[in-house]
């Protein structure tokens, strides 16, 4: 297993370098010189030229890239040209919010999607199965920003059950910083009142974000369960008189969630990118809204850093998924 994890980790390095090269090229090959915007609305050509020189935008692209890669190699992702702070600091302040949102979404998608998919397989071709398929197609098709607004209108504006926006009430001190995840920090400090507030704030954005993932997981689980239920060991278990509940929720489920587990890993990356829209609508202070601002202002170092960090997280999550995959199905680890 150790060799397996090391192998996966080593593969991550070229993937990240490739990601860096591609993102840099896409950002800098475009006629994209932020100097004029940086110099200000009334800047003279001399001012713009001075800014271009100060930020190194007058250097050849290859040189800018070499300088940037050298910086990244030393762990320095550079300064944001807008906030004039290290981008890693900006991202570090916002990343926990995005990870927390993504994780809760994924948790919700998995906790609801896997049982739904399993039940649909158990009740194959029943009304439940058909209804589940309709709902999952809708879940995949509905635009998250539209769904988010509908949720806001119902649960925040009409019913006043949930907060409209943000991660925490304005003016209330956030839980004492331990992990940066408000739900975790409030529990660790035994502040259940703050946990309730953080939980209320995350409900709508997490549900919105989970919708597509939930649908996808349910469909994968259903397909996996249907396939597993045709296997001989299931028939043997039935013939041996095992309880139906035990066969479905232990033997079938364990063998059918392998595909869904792989899907969860892929979904994590998708959820982080989908979080851009959800964060904007729910005013969630994560890296998604930071990335949008960075793109609009051509803050290319911030865009590169966000891409790199998200890529890194995506790689790590996929390694973890592979480990879980190997745990669920030991044949995977044995092949390596």
């Amino acid at each position, binding site marked *: 297993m150790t060799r397996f994890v090391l192998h996966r980790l080593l593969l991550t390095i070229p993937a990240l370098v490739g990601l860096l090269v591609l993102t840099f090229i896409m950002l800098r090959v*475009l*006629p*994209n*010189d*932020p100097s*004029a*915007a*940086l*110099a*200000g*609305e*009334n*800047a*003279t*050509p*001399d*001012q*713009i030229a*001075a*800014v271009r020189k100060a930020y190194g935008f007058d250097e050849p692209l290859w040189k800018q890239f070499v300088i940037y890669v050298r910086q990244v190699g030393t762990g320095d992702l550079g*300064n944001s040209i*807008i*906030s*004039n*702070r290290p981008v890693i600091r900006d991202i570090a*302040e*916002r990343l926990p919010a995005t990870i927390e949102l993504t994780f809760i979404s994924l948790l919700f998608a998995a906790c609801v999607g896997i049982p739904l998919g399993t039940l649909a397989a158990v009740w194959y071709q029943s009304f439940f199965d058909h209804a589940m398929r309709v709902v999952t197609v809708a879940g995949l098709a509905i635009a998250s920003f539209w769904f988010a*607004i509908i949720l*806001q*209108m119902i649960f*925040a*504006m009409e019913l*006043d*059950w*949930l*907060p*409209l*926006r*943000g991660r925490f*009430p*304005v*003016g209330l001190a956030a839980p004492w910083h331990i992990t940066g995840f408000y739900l975790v920090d409030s529990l660790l400090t035994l502040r*259940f009142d703050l*946990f*309730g*507030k953080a*939980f*209320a704030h995350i409900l709508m954005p997490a549900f919105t974000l989970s919708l597509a993932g939930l649908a996808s997981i349910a469909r994968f689980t259903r397909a996996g369960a249907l396939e597993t239920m045709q296997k001989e060991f299931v028939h043997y278990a039935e013939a041996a008189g095992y309880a139906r509940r035990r066969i479905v929720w232990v033997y079938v489920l364990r063998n059918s969630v392998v595909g869904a587990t792989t899907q969860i890993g892929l979904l994590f990356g998708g959820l982080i990118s989908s979080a851009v829209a959800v964060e*904007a*609508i*729910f*005013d969630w*202070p994560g890296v998604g*809204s930071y990335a*949008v*601002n960075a*793109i*609009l*202002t*051509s803050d290319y170092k911030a865009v590169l850093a966000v891409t790199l960090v998200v890529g890194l997280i995506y790689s790590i999550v996929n390694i973890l998924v592979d480990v879980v995959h190997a745990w669920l199905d030991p044949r995977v680890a044995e092949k390596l």
Partner: protein
Amino acid sequence: MKRRTFLMGSGAAVTVAAMGNRVALAQPMPDELVWADDLPGNLDPYSVSDVPMQGYMINVYDTLYVNKENPPKLVPWLATGHTISDDGLTVTVKLREGVKFHDGSSLTSDDVVWSFHRLLNVKKGPAAAFLPVLDTNGITAPDPTTAVFKLKQPYAPFVAAFPLVAILNRRQIEPNIKDNDWGQAWLASNSAGSGCYIPDISTYQPVQQLDMKRNHDHFMGWTHNTSPIEIVRRRSIMETTTRVNALIKGDVDCTDSYLPPDQVDRVLASKTATVSKNQTMRVMVLRMNNKKPPFDNRNFRLAMSHAFNYKGFIDGVLKGYAVRNAGPIPVNLWGSPTDLAPYDFNLDTAKDYLAKAKAEGAPVEREIEIQIQQHLAQTTQAAQILQQSLRKIGVNLKIVANLWPQLVSSTAKADTTPDMWAHWVSAYFIDPENWIGQMYDSRFHGTWKASCWYKNDKVDALLREARHLDDQGKRQPLYEEASRIIVADAADIWIYNAIELRGISNRLHGFEFTPIGSGADFRTMSLTS
């Protein structure tokens, strides 16, 4: 306790805790203002000069002069007054005594000189208004309450541009200078001002949030306001719908000042908020690159000017919340000729001019391109309205989405400047120079404001003369004449002067609009329950 019981109990506790927040979440604190307008990119007032920065600066910093009311009047603030020498080259400013920075140290002319030195060395944002006429050797402080500016040439808008320059506390910044950066890295996330509100830097998240508390010792005192706001919580909400919903729900006390017209009725229909409508000085303009064929042909530009459905755009898209602006200077500012007739929407006239342009050899058949700002819907709507009309007279207009930084950098050269693009010219300092001077004097070619690449020797002469005269009475006819020539030449398509629409909560009082900073002066505001 069984595992299932424990889980059910935990779930119920969480649900109760979450639901229990419901009432508290919807209730704003009685003495805390939640200001949901954009924050600047960083906190250094010399890094950028835009509307969010103005809104920040007027509260945290003080300037020699400020703009008050609408139309704006230049009012002495840190200054008690100023004199200008007969040759227009020396401006002497007298300062108030007893002004304190937030750290308790005194603000003197030494700080004024250091601040202007920093401005001219940093060379960003507001420096543009001063760099052509001022260098560091020209700023002196003969005594603690006098600052003297010796200009390289007479420059009438010099004093009008003072509100752009925050006076900084050098004692706070100097220890934080690194690599000769004039403290830029430090000030980007800190403050060194004397203004009526003090930022709580521990709450700062760039472009996201910042809290401020009232400066009880501000030199202007608080006698004008019996119940000033103690805490201001600035929160930037990216999405318009969320911003409006938050206002209606009572989560925040304002929206930004670009409330979409289709949201006005919704806010007005609520019981919690209203809409402040104020004519500002922000002119929407469709630029035409006068150096690129067929835009180098005056008849073609006239055809374009008659092909835009001004009324349809103002009444339809903007629901009437705009004032038709015939030329480059806002209609509510001196220098804009009162008798200047705007171009009308008339496709027959447009066709006639198009035929003339064609007869003169202009390549009117070529596809022309207009670049819009992707995240500003109005620029798309304006382009679509023009596209629809042009199709009827046989001109093919292609709409291309772009972003502000790219558009600005493309205007550095005539051949990279788009055929057309859409933007606004906002009020940075209240003088016609901010609009017509910087948009149509050919010395500004290469900047985004002069991106139509208009060149007319007569206009250059008029604008330069106006810039050098100190007497508004003498400057006004020069700007009026220049306006008439530029409009007759159809250098650009001027559409409207904006009416700013800002949603504000019913509990907020004392909102006083000024085009600079869009009325974000918390000093005059108060809250009622």
